[in-house]
């Protein structure tokens, strides 16, 4: 039986806007295809796991207070996460998780929280706490090999700069910075985004890209994923795209 192993980090602290739903969706789509999906959890002061033994590491978003709590702990995991990433483990990062993998995060009070520095981007929180990027967001992506418009919900004060390889082009909403042209960060084994919703709930292609990558990363002949009935998900997204993009 095919199997993927997932490490869900700080599930008890970083779970804003239904972010844990992403794990429920991955597990659901695996189950429907008979793929075994093992999800381990890691939180502050857990024993350091063997990060490289996982196919996917997932970190969600949280409130500022929780983010401060975890950043110190995350730094301790730096070597393990970096080795896993270089070894081909997929990193799926939402909001706070996205920010903390960059060089640094400067909070609204001007205090720098160091990131893991895996990627070149950095984030500066808008000093005015009332000025946040909030609302529905639609981005056009090409990373699956096809043009796919994905829909989510963003709510962030942080302005992320220095992204060379974004996840997609903003059709509606803000993206990485207030009114910016691009959203998220992408590498073949990294999806980092501000999209909550949860992100995977109406974007089945993104879920399947991640599942497909995890299944095939260690084997030579790629396994094709069995198609699922995604009518509800596709209708759900279509309703939002028509509402948001109609002028």
């Amino acid at each position, binding site marked *: 039986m095919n199997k993927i192993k997932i490490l869900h980090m700080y599930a*008890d*602290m970083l*779970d*804003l*806007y*239904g*972010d*844990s*739903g992403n794990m*429920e*969706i991955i597990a*659901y789509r695996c*189950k429907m295809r008979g793929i075994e999906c093992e999800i381990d959890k890691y939180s502050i002061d857990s024993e350091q796991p063997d990060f490289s033994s996982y196919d996917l590491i997932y970190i969600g978003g949280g*409130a*500022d*207070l*929780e983010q401060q*709590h975890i950043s110190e702990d995350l730094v301790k995991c730096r070597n393990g996460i970096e080795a896993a990433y270089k070894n081909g483990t997929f990193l799926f990062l939402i909001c706070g998780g996205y920010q903390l993998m960059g060089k640094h995060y400067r909070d609204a009070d001007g205090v720098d929280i160091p990131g893991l520095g895996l990627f070149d981007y950095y984030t500066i929180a808008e000093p005015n*706490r*009332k000025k*946040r990027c*909030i*609302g*529905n967001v639609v981005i056009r992506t090409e990373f699956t090999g096809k043009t796919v418009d994905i829909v989510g*919900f963003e*709510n962030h004060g942080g302005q992320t700069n220095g992204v060379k390889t974004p996840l997609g082009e903003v059709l509606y909403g803000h993206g990485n910075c207030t009114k910016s042209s691009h959203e998220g960060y992408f590498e073949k084994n990294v999806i980092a985004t501000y999209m*909550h*919703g*949860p992100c995977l*709930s*109406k974007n089945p292609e993104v879920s399947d890209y991640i599942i497909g990558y995890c299944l095939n990363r260690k084997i030579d002949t790629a396994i094709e994923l069995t198609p699922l*009935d995604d009518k*509800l*998900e596709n*209708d*759900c997204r279509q*309703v939002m795209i028509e509402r948001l993009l109609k002028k």
Partner: protein
Amino acid sequence: MNSILIIIGKIIVAVLRLFRRNAGNLPGIVLWHLTKGKCCKMFKVDCPIIAVTGTNGKTSVTNCIAQLFEQNGKKIIINKEGNNLDTGICSLLLRHCNIGGKVNADYLIFETDESHVPVVYSQLKLETLVVLNFFRDQLDRNGEMETLIQKINSFCKTFEGNLILNGDDPNTARLGRANPDNKNVKYFHAKPYAFATETIFEASEGRFCPFCGEALEYDYYQYSHIGKFCCKKCGFGNYEPYITAENIDLEKSVFTADGHEYSPKLNSIYNIYNMTAVAAAAKLYNIPENVTDNVISNYTINNGRMEAFMLGDRKATLNLAKNPVGANMTLRVMNEMQTEKELLFVLNDNIADGLDVSWIWDINFSVFDRVTRVVTSGTRAYDIAVRIKCSGYPAEKIIVCPDLDAAVAELAKTDGRKFVIANYTAVQPTRSALKRYSEKHGGKNE
């Protein structure tokens, strides 16, 4: 200057009424602009003000506290329509003041939006603040919950009046430490009920001590993060309760507080907490026992909170769910019922709901027991359908009907017990649709 503003306000109220428009908020909005945001400052209030805030239960507790005084023969002013922002309270006071801005009443009792507590009560002197709970709710409107708690916390730092706090919610109990000099902090508390659990059952927040960062330890959870908690490191949570609800029996719908037995009409653990807050206010203001008993035992609501409808000969219960806690509660009630049932879930994403609907992913649908069919409706009918599907519920048993009348007709098509969950702006349209169905197809509504 004050008089001119008040005359302007009163004219707006009069004109709106002349055209039979609701004057609940608009006059306040106009004055808010004219006063540069200080629209409550022009009133002269000599009587005590009692405010009720928190995520869930504000309306119920405000109404009950108002009845305590009313049935005790006092003249009160209350924002009954739930206009609970500064502009709503301003509009209300405009209708009850004289030209000089003097408000004539024995007590003012205001349901107050969490984010507006510091705004309103920096302008009007507050005597008592009741804080019920803080849950994730409409996060995108209020900013993150921590910011919200911080706002009320800074207000409490200089507040010297009575602070009645839910001692079983770490998010509200922490406010008791905001002003160490305030001797008037009072906690209400409840002993475990039959469905209390040792481990947490539903998504929650506030798992860490806000003072030292240590994980909080719980003797029991009543629902969500509400329960007997304590921080082993710094002692947060060790307090002497002002009033304690015990012998809670939801089947018989009774509980005792301070040695008195009460029989509330609404038998949910939520309501027990709300009524304990009411009992705390009654104790503080020395309300006669028979009045308190009468208020707590008779309070009921017909506004989509566990409201009963008949669809032909099929019984339907409608419950408002503004957040996961509310929805999980309805699922609990459904599961406690040992028969097959069907669910209609109506989900809107209007501005008042918060544009973000991801909170539905914090609802624990995996507990579904003998639910034979689900119908979804509202502006985000598909989102809730996808969410229920991904919890493992069979997709072929989910029917999406964005149109509400179509959804109610679909729900009523089959026999059996029906439940309806609707979020904030969906509740009134859902009630109307249920009533329309009853009128057309028979069925008496209570």
